[in-house]
């Protein structure tokens, strides 16, 4: 450890593109950051690396068009390995009083790590708007379906339908088809008209736009049925309701069905904000993301001194933006500690991020969250699967007990009280609440975060050892 790093040893949570680039910038300025990640290998969601024990597939096979970027991020990280304090398999489950509580998986121990400065780069998970039948075995989120492919090298089924909306929809379908799986159909809730209207904004990132167009064209050319403007009706089960047997949707004129043995579904992504919440960051509603997000300035400074936010965890902006934001946040951290940084580079990163904002707006227009989802969710629909809470139960809490805010809805109905603490059901529950009360989504608020961020074994919680024991 060098003298300067002893003075400031910042902590980065998340080793996705944002965390990796943040670490790289800190190291370049002579610091030795701690990098904590729940996963066993760096790369984050998009550049997730399979376990070393699995037969190596090429980056090209794993990441397609993204192979070059994936290689670059992995290489950048590998080059840092000796110059950072890297802690994989380590879940940050609590933050309090300048210390993070970390659960180290393999040694099943927990430790408490002090920090002065912290870069939160915790990424995202799928945004789920459930359909009847979504709890059947064989239904996965789009991200989950992709993780199965990238991480385990297997498909979720032999005949897979993809349903929902968002850029991942076509990408994952494409990846499945490329990997040799049979893609039964792609069912997009967005209409072709949405995509056409969004094209000008999307052209701000011509390369990314071109990729999207390519996936669609490729799927079409390979005979995959693509349906736009659908309203998903349900996932059909087999005779024993033990497995997916098909999907049903409405195409605007009539009800249609299709046989398949697995479904990947989702409506884009949602930010993983629990840690920022526990750190006391101020949140605001971000209309573009249809979510309450921790506020930050253009450089990534949160409302809490010493806490910086980068990547999808602070707002879904995609992998390239995550890299830029990670680096930008690191420069802000350095500057705030009196380290001289390249101001031109900082400005360039901000400009790039700013420019991407327009593209993101285009994406939202191209793949809007179906505004009528809540209106069509019937009372029997299970919204929260941990606690088995239906849309009807949520509406009852509104009608009979006057719930008009997310935490009150949780208190009265148990939605979000299970293992996931609302990470999976929160977005859908908010849509239902807003619809049932007639209030704008922004006004129904958000679920307050509580430790632990993910469930922790009691016997481990019993013994927080001194810093460093996790290693």
């Amino acid at each position, binding site marked *: 450890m060098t003298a300067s790093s002893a003075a400031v040893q910042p902590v980065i949570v998340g080793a996705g593109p944002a965390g990796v680039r943040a670490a790289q910038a800190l190291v370049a300025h002579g610091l030795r950051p701690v990098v904590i990640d729940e996963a066993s290998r760096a790369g984050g969601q998009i550049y997730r690396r399979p376990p070393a024990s699995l037969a190596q597939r090429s980056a090209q096979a794993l990441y397609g068009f993204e192979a070059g970027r994936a290689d670059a991020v992995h290489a950048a990280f590998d080059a840092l390995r000796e110059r950072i304090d890297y802690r994989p398999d380590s879940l940050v489950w609590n933050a*309090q009083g300048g*210390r993070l509580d970390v659960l180290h998986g393999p040694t099943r121990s927990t430790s408490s790590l002090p920090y002065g400065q912290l870069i939160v780069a915790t990424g995202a998970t799928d945004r789920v708007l459930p359909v009847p039948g979504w709890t059947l075995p064989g239904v996965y989120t789009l991200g989950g379906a992709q993780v199965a492919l990238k991480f385990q090298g297997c498909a979720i089924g032999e005949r897979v339908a993809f349903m929902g909306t968002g850029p991942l929809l076509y990408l994952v379908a494409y990846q499945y088809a490329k990997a040799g799986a049979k893609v039964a159909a792609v069912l997009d809730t967005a209409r072709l008209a949405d995509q056409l209207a969004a094209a000008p904004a999307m052209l701000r990132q011509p390369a990314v736009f071109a990729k999207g167009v390519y996936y669609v064209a490729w799927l079409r050319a390979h005979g995959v049925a693509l349906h736009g403007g659908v309203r998903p009706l349900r996932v059909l089960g087999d005779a024993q309701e033990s497995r997916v047997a098909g999907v049903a949707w409405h195409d605007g004129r009539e009800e249609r069905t299709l046989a398949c043995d697995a479904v990947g579904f989702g409506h884009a992504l949602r930010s993983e904000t629990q840690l920022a919440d526990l750190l006391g960051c101020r949140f605001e509603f971000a209309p573009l993301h249809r979510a309450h997000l921790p506020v930050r300035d253009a450089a990534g400074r949160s409302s809490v001194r010493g806490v910086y936010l980068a990547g999808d965890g602070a707002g879904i902006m995609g992998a390239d933006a995550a890299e830029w934001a990670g680096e930008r946040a690191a420069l802000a951290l350095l500057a705030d500690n009196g380290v001289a940084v390249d101001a031109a580079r900082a400005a360039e990163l901000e400009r790039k991020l700013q420019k991407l904002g327009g593209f993101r707006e285009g994406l939202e227009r191209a793949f809007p969250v179906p505004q009528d989802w809540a209106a069509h969710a019937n009372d029997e629909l299970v919204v929260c699967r941990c606690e088995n809470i239906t849309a009807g139960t949520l509406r009852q809490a509104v009608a009979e007990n006057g719930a008009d805010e997310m935490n009150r809805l949780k208190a009265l109905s148990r939605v979000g009280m299970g293992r996931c603490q609302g990470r999976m059901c929160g977005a859908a529950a908010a849509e239902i609440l807003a619809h049932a009360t007639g209030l704008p989504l922004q006004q129904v608020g958000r679920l307050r975060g*509580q430790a632990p961020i993910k469930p922790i074994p*009691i016997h481990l*919680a019993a013994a927080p050892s001194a810093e460093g024991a996790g290693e």
Partner: protein
Amino acid sequence: MSGRKTLRTDVAIVGGGIVGASAALALRQMGIGVVLLERDLCGSRSSGVNYGGVRRQGRPIDQLPLAQRAHRIWGRLRETIGTDGEYLRSGHFKIARSEADMASLERYRAQSRDFDLGLELISDARLRERCPWLGTRAVGGSLCAEDGQANPRLVSPAFALAAQRAGAQVFERHKVEEVAHDGQAFMLRSGNALEVHAPALLNCAGAWAGSIAAEFGEEVPLQSGHPAMAVTEPLPFFMDWSLGVEGGGIYCRQVARGNLVLGGGGKGIALDADRARSDRDAIASLSAQAVELLPALRHAHFIRTWSGTEGYLPDRQPVLGPSRTTPGLFHGFGFSGAGFQIGPAAGEVLAELVRDGRSSTPIESFSIERFTPTPP
């Protein structure tokens, strides 16, 4: 804003916790006019986030008349507030970890003999037979079969809804920012929105009641505390009693869905004047004691922790009764970590005080006079 709304009523109440809400309900049942102002949502503070223990056992003897009165209200909860709020007379078992603890439980049984709590001491072979899931640290304990547990998230807001159905005017998200008394009546003001005039005022503002008392020249050493709470993932159901530990420590209960709710084991931390959460050391202590008491928890996970903001007085007794400075003012606050069970009775007592000037339940021990500075 188009002018402030002015209301005149018989009784104004500050605070929509279980105490203020049940007072509102009791007053309406007496036909008395009520306006209740709650800064946030009714039952969103202590009353809605507590552990849910509904126990008389272990309370100071002078609280038992109030606790007995509350016990009767809990017994007809559904008729009273329209929901059972998951209230169960599951039994409350106070664990002894030593012979000295056992002797102390025995003494409590003798002292509380007049109150019909039905306490039953259990130890040795009978203990192991009745609760094989108890760890070896427990040598015995005292069972109050009629004590139990309820879901505070459901019960406390339901009291406020019931009061509203009975005709109380309940204003949520209306913080009382100004109170005054002109010698005749009280005036309460909530921003530019609402002004309430009433000859009687109930101070039921929980941990925040001290400043209202001080407005009327009554300083009380009220402090905020934050008991740490945690809940496990659902486990196969094995325990119907709610557990406590003689001499303090943790308490826990298992709900019908299988989750174990645990509390105690140290303090939470205040985030600001209004919000708190469990402290990491408190979680650690809670966990260690839980595993010792219930070895079955060894492989369980905590899925959530939380805390709340509760008002404590140094002798751990509430302030319940008339103001000594201002006619028409009545206090009901400072329940010191144990007001959920007695809250509904405290509400009835406050209503009686308004109507009759006296309560049929003895409350002398809770007088605010005990904090009167002794004259020089």
